[in-house]
């Protein structure tokens, strides 16, 4: 089953493999007293919980004018090889390689005009909303999932933030808010493999007999929190609930089949299924990535294999969430580092284009079936309704029940930081 987590070691244009080492992170949960939590919630303006997010990172930066913003009327050196097709939403067209998504365009929206993105191969800005260099002095801006972990305070039955894409920076919140990475050692803690359930029971009984330090010394509530986490850990291990969520063999074959594209099952696509299963098990934010979009050469050839697989997996996820009634609560966002050059280069590729980027958004109770913003006739600049990267983040936070206008976290230098500086949720969506 570990194959699920093996990512293809994709090379980027700078020759560096971004495949992360199999590092295992902390679960983003922490022991706070109930009073702390209530206060945090009140300060954050948290209105509801139980909302979740799947953040899909198309690593390398997909060509926006070949996926969701085609330019059939542009000169051929811009236009590229693909034609748009109509979707079930009048006036909304997407790439011909995505017939399945075209049939369910009423269930998602497209943002075609994200500006203020960054030009480097980094997942930080689509995890945190800021570049990796901002606030570096105090550790950087935290990822959205780390922020949710902090506000969640570990009340859930599962880690709040799971990464299927290696390390995602907790920023200035510190390592304890790193995402849980269910690969290697860390995954093995979720189920009993080394000892039998009976032996764990015996051990737990012995622990209960011996663990008799007077609890009235626990005036901070930390021991109480530890007790509660110990109980939950035993529950997680004996029930195997989280381990099961990570085991795709436990999924119905026909449902699993939906995610498989022409190339069959691949780790990138199965991670979307995994994300759904983790959220059903109580996780609130799942970050995952799908690589292979850094098409400096042979853009069209690459996309002919990439896009149909993406079409299958993403439409499978949306269908799945919709059938389970989860689209109301679960937001899906999919994007890359940046867009790609409108003009095709000499090697039939497209290069980095941070001036404009697109995002696919669905669920989370947002209004769907819309196209927000527009680019010029070549796809080079946002000409209508430019959307700031952080407006998308404000929307994601709001969908998760965290008020981005009010919630603040004090950074290690003592400065109160808003989660997203002064950006409001996208009014067309919420």
């Amino acid at each position: 089953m570990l194959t699920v987590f093996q990512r293809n070691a994709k090379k980027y244009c700078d020759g560096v493999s971004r495949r992360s080492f199999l590092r295992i992170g902390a679960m983003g949960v922490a022991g706070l007293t109930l009073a702390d939590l209530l206060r945090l919630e009140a300060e954050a303006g948290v209105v509801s919980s139980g909302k979740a997010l799947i953040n899909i990172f198309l690593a390398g930066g997909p060509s926006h004018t070949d996926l969701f913003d085609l330019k059939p009327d542009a000169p051929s050196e811009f236009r590229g090889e693909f034609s748009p097709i109509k979707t079930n939403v009048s006036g909304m067209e997407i790439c011909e390689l995505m017939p399945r998504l075209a049939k369910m365009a009423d269930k998602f929206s497209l943002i075609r005009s994200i500006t203020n993105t960054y030009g480097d191969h980094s997942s930080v800005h689509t995890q945190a909303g800021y570049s990796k260099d901002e606030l570096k002095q105090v550790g950087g801006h935290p990822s959205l999932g780390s922020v949710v972990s902090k506000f969640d305070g570990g009340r859930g039955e599962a880690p709040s933030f799971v990464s299927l894409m290696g390390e995602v920076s907790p920023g200035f919140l510190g390592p304890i808010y790193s995402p849980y990475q269910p690969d290697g050692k860390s995954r093995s803690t979720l189920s009993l493999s080394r000892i039998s359930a009976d032996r764990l029971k015996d051990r737990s009984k012995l622990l209960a007999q011996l663990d008799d330090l007077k609890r009235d010394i626990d005036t901070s509530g930390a021991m109480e929190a530890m007790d509660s986490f110990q109980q939950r850990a035993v529950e997680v291990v004996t029930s195997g609930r989280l381990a099961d969520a990570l085991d795709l063999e436990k999924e119905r074959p026909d449902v699993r089949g939906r995610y498989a594209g022409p190339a069959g099952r691949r780790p990138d696509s199965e991670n979307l299924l995994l994300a759904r299963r983790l959220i059903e098990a109580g996780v609130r934010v799942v970050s995952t990535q799908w690589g292979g979009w850094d098409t400096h050469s042979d853009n069209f050839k690459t996309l002919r294999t990439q896009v149909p697989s993406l079409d299958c997996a993403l439409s499978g996820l949306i269908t799945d969430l919709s059938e389970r009634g989860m689209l109301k609560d679960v937001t899906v966002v999919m994007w890359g580092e940046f867009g790609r050059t409108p003009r095709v280069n000499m090697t039939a590729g497209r290069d980095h284009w941070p001036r404009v980027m697109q995002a696919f958004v669905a669920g989370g109770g947002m209004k769907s079936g819309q196209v927000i913003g527009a680019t010029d006739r070549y796809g080079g600049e946002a000409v209508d309704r430019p959307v700031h990267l952080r407006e998308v983040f404000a929307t994601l936070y709001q969908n998760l029940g965290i008020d981005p206008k009010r919630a603040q976290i004090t950074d290690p230098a003592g400065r109160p930081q808003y989660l997203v500086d002064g950006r409001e949720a996208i009014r067309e969506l919420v």
Partner: protein
Amino acid sequence: MHERQTNMRRRDALVNLLRGRRSLRMAALGLAIAGAVAVRFSTLHAADAPATPKAHVAQDPGPITALDIAAGSTDEATAAGGATAHHAMLRGPDARMQLVVTARYASGEARDRTADVSYSVSPAGIVRVDPSGAVVPLADGTATVNASADGGRRASTTISVESFANPPAVNFPNQIVPIFTKLGCNSGACHGKSGGQNNFRLSLLGFEPAKDYRFLVEESRGRRIFPAAPDQSLLLQKPTAMIAHGGGERMKKDSPEYRMIYRWISQGMPYGKETDPVLASVSVFPTVRRMVDDGSQQILVVAHYSDGSSEDITRSARYDVNDKDLAEVADSGHVKMTGRPGDVAVMVRYQGQVGVFRATVPVGAPVDHLPAAKNVVDEMAFAKFKDLGLPPSEACDDATFLRRVTLDVAGRLPTAAEARAFQADPTAAKRDACIDRLLASGDYADLFAGKWCSVLKNHRERETYQRGDYLFHDWVRQSLLENKPYDQFVRELVTATGDPAQTPAVSWYRQVKEPTEQVEDTAQLFLGVRIGCAKCHHHPFERWSQQDYYGMAAFFSQVGRKEGAASDEFRIYPKRGEAVARNPNGGATVKPTGLGAKAMTLTPDEDPRVALANWMTAPENPFFAKSLVNRYWKHFFGRGIVDPEDDMRETNPPTNPKLLAALAEHFAASHYDLKDLVRTICRSQLYQLSSEPNQYNEKDRQSYSHFYSRRLPAEVMLDAVDQLSDTRTPFKGMPVGGRAVQLPDMGGVDSNFLQVFGRPAGTSACECERNGETSLAQTLLLLNSGDIYDKLSGGCASKLAGVDPKRSDREKIADLYYGAFGRPPTEKEVATAIAYIDRNHEADAKAPEKLAADRKAAYEDLLWALLNTKEFLFNH
């Protein structure tokens, strides 16, 4: 003993429940309720519910002996003298004033009665007073306001109203800008952020009124203001939500704020004359108050201007409380206590000026069994206990002391042998001797080098950093080991010159590259001041301006950097030239200036960093010694005397100022001797208190009346697990047997355990990067990870399982207990453990080959249980 406590708890609970109903005057009803309470309490008691004794026993303060009324003045004497001494003035129709009525009791106590008296005004029609003591003008004239408390005590004051019908010209900085601050318009979340909100920008918290004037009056072709019909101005229509406003309704139409802005517009938007008075300071009444734990206090705030005039600004100021566990404060300046004893400060902010109201909530219990004070720590802490009526817990036992001090000073558990020897040592001074022994050991240097390396950002950003990181760590560790005076340590760091092979301290400049970062880290690390805010705007809670920030930045303006001997190494040198920094707000150049000190004139040949080190380490520097002793205090007590420990400011006062001052003085007098400081802290009775609270101090979280237990830090925890299981975790780049506390830098090893338990990443100068919280990932790791299983099966379990005629299971169990907890097991614990080990004894007797395996498994289980107990995971 137990019965006596229970009785006291019962009485306290009754008192508290009854107090909640004290407004009910009818005796019969009172009796009925008392009966009901007694029943309820007995049910509680029968269920043996956790007794949460209310700390404070309300004392009847006796009859009121005097009633004082303060109006328009924060002068204590005026308030006490009432009407005769002061004549309060309301100028203009929108002026407001807050009364504060204080009752003085026979017991000597003073309590706020502002909302608990009845007011009358004569003659009528001049002012109106509402039940909360807020006064508004009605017409020009002079009136006497009377307050009367039940019991007949009265107080009165005279208030005049002038310019009611013909208000004077509005002054924009003094009267309009504060409205934006109070309503939050110019906050960082709204129009105050750089770039503003929806194209309308205000200076953050109104620190730059001239810019605000320009934004409002001149920008956007003046569309924000409509002088011909002021009420049609966007400036009035938006915040009243007459037209859509993203920030919602911020003020009511016809509120005093609304009328003030209206009047300003109708007067033609005057900015104010150059001769108009400017704000000089704010003052607060009262400044200090002892309160009952559910009490409240109205505060009164007055602005003082350059011409000597003053004005009540209670309703215009902003309030924040530094410890929300203790009190909350309303926009009106009304402070309500939450029922927890201790000290709390309410910060009052008004246009860059700050004031503080400090409240103390005593417990009021007898404090009469204090041990003899060992040193300055005890003297100051015990005085606080007496002042608060907060009896401290008993002294901890020897085993607890040994474990605690070994963890805190040496970053490890005591070995079983050490624990046994300490237990057996009959000498009276064995605790002091133990502290000295630990301080002399390399373990002390290891632990504290790790602590310093984290905040000094000794972080392996790239593999090429390793050499510099190791040299830097070695320099820090060596400095601590040989007990280099702290001032010298800081001087060597800040003035580091050369390359890392000769001067390892220069590596700090590799991690802390920008002058702004150097300023901010220096201030936070060595002065306990978080000055980062002042980089871009006036510090919102402090007196620091951008001028102060860039005065500090000038010290780092001449730091030169050349490529070093190896890649990613640098040679640091002082550039020749005049040291100045440029204040981006206005562009003025600023000379090197210590915080709150005079500007320095340095020659081009002087290294300004030397001047900085001289200023910081001078005996009269107000920050240097305090900041360090507070940082170390937090290490040993879990909470700084000022907390967070690196955020010292007037508006975040120490909970025990005398203790902080005395300890800082002691530290400076010792020539900044760090080991002496540790010794002084650890020898104190205070540090050696039990963590078990008594019925009075359970709620105390800031006076150290009992030891505050805390989870072991990541590295110490990993080493402790290794020690208990007799295994070693290998670390890349470390010799065999190296321990986690000895890791030279952050980011150099890849350890899941250390990350999950919150070892800092070394990217911040704040100690807060180390996280002592608990999490599900931690418990999963301890309960069910391969790493732990390997340690349990690969360590001492086999040896323990072997049947040894010279060493019984009982002895082995005792050794484990000494090793894990520093104490012998109780009889019950031995019995439990032996029963567990022998539980398959009979079955195994028939299958001897299974015996060994079962015994090993049983010892593994025992080890597992021990390392998952709170007694193991916490320092208590």
